């Protein structure tokens, strides 16, 4: 099975959660090289985040565990990059 090198997740967390700590905890995972959290929407009680994680061999289960420990939940997996190297999305004339 090819290693997962990048994950883009749509995450929902209660707005009383600590987004900075969540990002640090994700970045502290041995399999994660770096984490980027962008707030995409703030509601009355919840915050929607776009979470970008990169690493040599990302483990979705352990990432979800950290997100759950902060009260968050993965709404959708928006982008997965797997293989020997990271392949970026390329624009085609149809785009």
């Amino acid at each position, binding site marked *: 099975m090819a290693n997962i090198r990048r994950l883009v997740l749509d995450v*929902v967390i*209660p*707005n*009383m*959660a*600590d987004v900075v*700590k969540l990002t640090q905890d994700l970045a502290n995972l041995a399999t994660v090289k770096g984490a980027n959290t962008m707030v995409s929407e703030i*509601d*009355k*009680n*919840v915050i929607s985040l776009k979470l970008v994680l990169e690493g040599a061999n990302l483990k979705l289960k352990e990432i979800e565990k950290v997100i*759950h*420990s*902060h*009260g*968050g*939940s993965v*709404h959708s997996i928006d982008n997965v990059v797997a293989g020997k190297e990271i392949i970026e999305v390329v624009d085609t004339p149809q785009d």
Partner: protein
Amino acid sequence: MQLVRYITRGLIDGSLSTLGIVLGAAISGDVKVIIAAGLGGGMANAISNLLGALTAEKASVMINLAKYERAMVGSNIKLKDTKIYDRESKMIWMGGMADATATFFGSIVPIIPFGLLALDSAIIGSILITTALLSVLGMYIGRLSKENLAFAGIKMAAFGLVTAGLAMSLEFFFK
């Protein structure tokens, strides 16, 4: 900032309620009874404030967490198993301990003169020292809320004097 709120609240609560206790107990004319009543009242008040934080504030946090759980549509997450709950629990404990400790130390203030002065002077000393503490706390709160410092201090000192007046009026009913 949260802890300062608990400490200020505890100091006001402890000093004001114990002022009432010692002035009420002063009817006995026995310094030992006054000090024991003040310390006992102070300890009970401190424990009561700790219990208040651990029960009422915990209930409030749980209600809040349930609201967030309902807002997390599509997820069956239980926030009690998360770091949010751990952080809130820690805050409740720290707040409760700060409140209880400040309440106890606040309650010692009106008792101090009874360990140093004769009864009549100690009664006046107790009112003065408590009123002074309350006015300092009032000014501190006034500074935080950007009120007039003198007005905030006098307002809080007035609460001390009213409490003292009410407690001393008991003498007319029981003597």
